[in-house]
């Protein structure tokens, strides 16, 4: 097994699925010769050529609309939106079509496409390059919203997303693109969509997080253990929607104390749904208010101040 960054792991998933299945097409702005602005599609153009790795004009609705057409015709497009901050330009194509065509045609057509986009802060980027708006997609019926938290699960989830018969929004935590390496097996590995995982066992409290927030959350869990002797169970959602409430509800029933962490603004963010599920399904086990450590209800500041906006271990420990 090779130690890989998340960028390499995603690249591996794309390469192997493209080798296996000539229906898989990668398209987007600068995904070809340039290999993507984060190099996620590096060398795919050289290996598969311009008919499999398609540089597109600068048109997000066009990229997604074309992907819908390709998918309906029987291909498996994996499009890249260069930054999630520019995926609103194509939101109508997802809300009005991709997420509904199976329903609209009562099973006659479906849209097996993946929309990849880097999201979140922490890379000293320009405005619009650091937002977390996964809640938009999570609220759309018919859509899958997936966010990996490490190289290995990123690879396995992307393979599953590509093979899924329904559209998948695949947000990649750009702060983790090269933050650390993990063993990623060359041989095929998948993870089911719609399933969360226990990232750390514990009986005293439950921390629910995903994506780039897994690192500060796990760091906080370690510190709670060292400093206060509290063992936190940490749930990594992996799929935001359809939301898998089984693990965090079970954990909440065990610990009675829950904290939800996300980078997105607090109000009407993913945390609300998680808390609502806990209240629905574990109310009588809750021993204390469920708190949210999240981005604030403002635009994430330009990078000199973003560290104050993005949740970090200190804020979680408190």
């Amino acid at each position, binding site marked *: 097994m090779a130690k890989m960054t998340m960028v390499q792991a995603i690249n591996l998933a794309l390469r192997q699925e493209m080798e296996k299945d000539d229906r898989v*097409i990668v398209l987007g702005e600068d995904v070809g010769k340039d290999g993507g602005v984060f190099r996620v599609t590096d060398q795919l153009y050289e290996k598969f050529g311009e*008919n499999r790795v398609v540089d*597109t*004009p600068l*048109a997000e*609705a*066009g990229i*997604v*609309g*074309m*992907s*819908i*057409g*390709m*998918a*309906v*015709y*029987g*291909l498996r*497009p994996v499009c890249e939106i260069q930054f999630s901050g520019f995926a609103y330009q194509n939101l*109508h*194509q997802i809300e*009005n*079509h991709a997420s509904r*065509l*199976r*329903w*609209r*045609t*009562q*099973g*006659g*057509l*479906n849209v097996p496409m993946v929309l990849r986009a880097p999201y979140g802060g922490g890379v000293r980027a320009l405005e619009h390059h650091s937002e977390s708006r996964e809640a938009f997609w999570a609220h759309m*019926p*018919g859509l899958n919203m997936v966010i990996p938290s490490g190289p290995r699960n990123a690879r396995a989830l992307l393979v599953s997303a590509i093979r*899924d*018969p*329904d559209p998948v929004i695949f947000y990649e935590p750009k702060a983790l693109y090269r933050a650390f390496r993990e063993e990623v097996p060359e041989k095929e590995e998948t993870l089911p969509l*719609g399933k969360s995982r226990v990232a750390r066992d514990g009986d005293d409290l439950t921390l629910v997080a995903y994506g780039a927030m897994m690192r500060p959350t796990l760091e906080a869990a370690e510190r709670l253990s060292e400093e206060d002797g509290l063992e936190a169970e940490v749930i990594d959602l992996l799929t935001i929607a*359809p*939301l*898998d*409430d*089984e693990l965090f509800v079970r954990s909440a029933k065990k610990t009675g104390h829950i904290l939800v962490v996300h980078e997105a603004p607090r109000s009407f963010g993913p945390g609300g749904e998680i808390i609502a*599920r806990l209240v629905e399904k574990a109310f009588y086990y809750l021993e204390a208010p469920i708190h949210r450590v999240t981005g604030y209800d403002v635009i994430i500041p330009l990078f000199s101040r973003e560290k104050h906006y993005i949740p970090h271990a200190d804020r979680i420990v408190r």
Partner: protein
Amino acid sequence: MPREKIDIPGQIDHLSIIDKEGNLDKDLEPALPDDFLLKLYRTMVLGREFDARQLSLQRQGRIGTFPPITGQEAAHLGPAAVLRDSDWLVPSFRETVAELWRGRTIESILLANNGYNEGAQMKTGMNMMPISVPVGSQVIHAVGIAWAMKYRGKDDLAMVFFGDGATSEGDFHEGINMAGVYDAPVIFVCQNNHWAISVPRARQTRSKTIAQKALAYGIEGIQVDGNDILATYAAAQEAAERARSGGGPTLIECVTYRLRMHTTADDPKRYRTDEEVQGWEKQDPLLRYQKYLKAKGLLSDEEIVSISDAVKAEIADAVKRAEERMREIGDPGDAMSMFNYAYAEMHPYLKEQKDQLAAELKETAKEGDNG
């Protein structure tokens, strides 16, 4: 080089084969078999009569609101008629005759227009997208389909329909521009019926024609008399040959007119004059085509009547079948079915919601029995 003219193709043609008086331009007349010509006629009549029938059904509250097509039969049937089964049709929402030509049933349209999802069920292999209500959004889908056809080495094509208003949408622009970049085998057919609800063509864009927008994308464009089915057919045929032979996309502007309301919820008197409408009634594509077929000796007055009767009977049967079907389904119909087809596999939380509703409905039923 100070101020010099750049050599770009700056020309757009207008095509007409049967003029407003019904005179034929023999040189341009496409050579089509008689039965094909008559099938076109019958389908136009079917569209016209179905429109009338749906209007009365809507007035009687037997279906909901819908977009009439009267006056635009030639503008969308002509292009659709050049398609092969392996080509794809990507409609907007006002190409009923093209949908019928492609094999969509009258019943399914009635079901959909009366708010039954069953009506939009798509049989696989129809190579057709469902109607697209978000204006302009479907244009890009056709480009993706066409790209995929080219990728698969097929000489098929995708034909997408949209209105004059749709050309103002960003999606129209992104789609047609990408089609040009990829030389995708697409035919973009604009139904310029002069109105986008209450907004006249002239307030939709400052360009003299829609066809000239092709110049912006470096692709072929042509304007045709949309009430002349020979012209719309011929223009599409030319575009199809271009597409199949790798010549790339074409933009066809069919100049036509919406003789009725935008939808049954609309009152055109608020924004246009009767004179304007009457002027266009004189250019009725159906009458013009009748003249042509009669002159060709393919259609007699008796046949006009018999075809119209046959078509009406066909519609009457379909209405009966559709209403039986609706009764079977029931109004509101099986509520549980709304949970189907959201995903390939229903996820647990949705299942919980479905079960909850099922339980509630059982209760209500019980209460009903008791009360």
